[in-house]
């Protein structure tokens, strides 16, 4: 499935980028003569018919050759790969933050359903869901960097630098995790096997982690898996706000500059990340739900 997805992604990127105008003009000035432009076009390979360009592009993509950045003069894939770990680091931290915040919030509002705790948790979740990433980011900078001077507003390198961007990106995601946790925990708690668990004398805490969470996890993991692309999407904003040296922010600039090779390489790597994550989620699934694990072997 992953190769197929990647070809699809590459195709869409290729044609959509071609729709945005002739890239040759980026390299020319108003004084350039038509001959110069033509020479440049030939040099860069933009003179060939579109299908030929497409085939060549695909063949190169297989060996991760997306060409040289039109702006930096370096292989695009190198530029992207150099920034990729930073994005990955941010995304993983944000995911951990969102689970660390979202799951307890969801669990509390499910377990204390209808009480003031439920209202508090649900309200915060609603705000988290509604607040735009850039607003949360700016507010956090305002409070923790400008007022309290506790954490750096931009840059990277230390754990301190990681905190604000992770929370910014994670907060948006945490709301989603909290909402789905609440719903699925409530649903599982209605099940008869929860009564059975209590009837054999299971303590409440054990009921929660062994019976409720283990079953609710299936839905929660699904939602987290489905949301990975929007996490990467949110990274664009978080990276821009905090000047985080990752792929997402870098690609936004590449799009403005119509730096095709970089955009293509960037999208390729990000889509690949998403596809691999989905695979991981699927594998995780089989671990969580025995019916999927054994379904194909037995029956």
């Amino acid at each position: 499935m992953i190769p197929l997805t990647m070809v699809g992604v590459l195709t869409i990127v290729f044609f959509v980028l071609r729709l945005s105008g002739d890239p040759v003009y980026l390299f020319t000035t108003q004084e350039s003569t038509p001959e110069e432009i033509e020479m440049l076009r030939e040099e860069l390979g933009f003179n060939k018919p579109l299908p030929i360009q497409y085939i060549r592009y695909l063949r190169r993509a297989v060996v991760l050759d997306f060409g040289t950045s039109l702006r930096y003069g370096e292989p695009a894939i190198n530029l992207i790969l150099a920034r990729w770990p930073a994005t990955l680091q941010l995304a993983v931290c944000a995911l951990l933050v969102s689970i660390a915040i979202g799951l307890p919030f969801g669990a509390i509002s499910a377990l204390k359903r209808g009480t003031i705790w439920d209202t508090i948790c649900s309200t915060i979740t609603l705000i988290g869901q509604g607040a735009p990433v850039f607003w949360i980011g700016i507010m956090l900078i305002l409070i923790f960097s400008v007022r309290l001077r506790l954490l750096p507003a931009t840059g990277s390198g230390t754990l301190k630098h990681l905190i604000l961007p992770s929370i910014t990106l994670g907060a948006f995601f945490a709301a989603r995790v909290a909402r789905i946790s609440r719903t699925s925990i409530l649903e599982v708690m209605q099940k008869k096997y929860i009564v059975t668990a209590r009837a054999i004398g299971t303590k409440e805490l054990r009921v929660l982690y062994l019976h409720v969470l283990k079953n609710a996890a299936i839905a929660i993991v699904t939602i987290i898996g489905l949301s990975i692309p929007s996490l990467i999407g949110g990274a664009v904003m978080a990276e821009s706000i905090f000047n985080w040296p990752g792929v997402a922010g870098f690609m936004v600039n590449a799009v403005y500059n119509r730096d095709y090779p970089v955009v293509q390489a960037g999208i390729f790597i990000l889509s690949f990340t998403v596809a691999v994550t989905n695979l991981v989620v699927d594998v995780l699934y089989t671990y969580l739900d025995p019916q999927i694990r054994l379904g194909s072997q037995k029956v």
Partner: protein
Amino acid sequence: MSETILSVKNLNVQFITKRGIIKAVQDVSYSLEKGEAVGIVGESGCGKSVSVLSLLRLLPENLARIKSDEIRFCDTDLLHIANKDMQNIRGSKISIIFQDPMASLNPVLTIGRQLREPLIIHRMAKAKEANNKALELLRMVQIPDPEERMNNYPYEMSGGMRQRVMIAMSLICNPELLIADEPTTALDVTVQAQIIDLVKELRRRLGMSLIWISHDLGIIAGLVNRVLVMYAGTIVEEALVDDLFYTPRHPYTRALLASIPQAEGQLKRKLQPIRGSPPDLLNLPRGCLFAERCNYVKDVCRKEKPPIRRINDNHRCACWMDTTTSEVL
């Protein structure tokens, strides 16, 4: 003289809902001797399950309101013990088998894991020992290939098998009291008969007391010593099983017996349904709750609730009428 294992006095259970207060169980009193088997019979929603689940605090806490003069199990006051102590009793001293085996087992845990769980929770055995005990119980409830079944998940088993697993799970700690809450309702008739035979056999072997809840008098007949008949949250008649079948007193019991379909017999009589439907538990009528559907109804029935009267040592009935003579008592 046998000793009383369970004694419930004036149990009342109400459910608080948006539409009002549902009086699910009203002034229910019963007791159970050690080793005795009691059946609780009545139609759906008459409070059979609630009157038993409430003893173990298994009803949703935010909805159910339980009041009682006494709930005593052996020497323990179940009404006032701490939740922690209640957890220690559940599954070890009092076990329950539920109605729906398809939904009562945790789908993501193996059968073995779930069978060992009561022993582990109640610290009655270490992992290895618990495993052996689980295997022993699976054999006892006649599941073939118990070793292999231990690694199965519930979805890999049929309803009858799952109910056997539930029975094994409920017996694994050697409980003194087993509560069977319509354990055969969701199963087909042959499997139903197998499960009943199994419980009978296990009871004979292990000697625990039994409360069997059912809406089917036929099932109860061969299984228990004594029967409580419930209607709209109250006990209307209580008798030894033979007395109940041969000399039923309450009009509701009589109607229930008349509505059992009979396969054999020369009479080929028509099935006699009980006309009408039970009263709305949100809005109970003044007098006798069965009055609207009763064939013997008199004026007094609609005005005042009949007290439960003693007919002999083992027979009680809540009716204004002597249905054997059709006279008001």
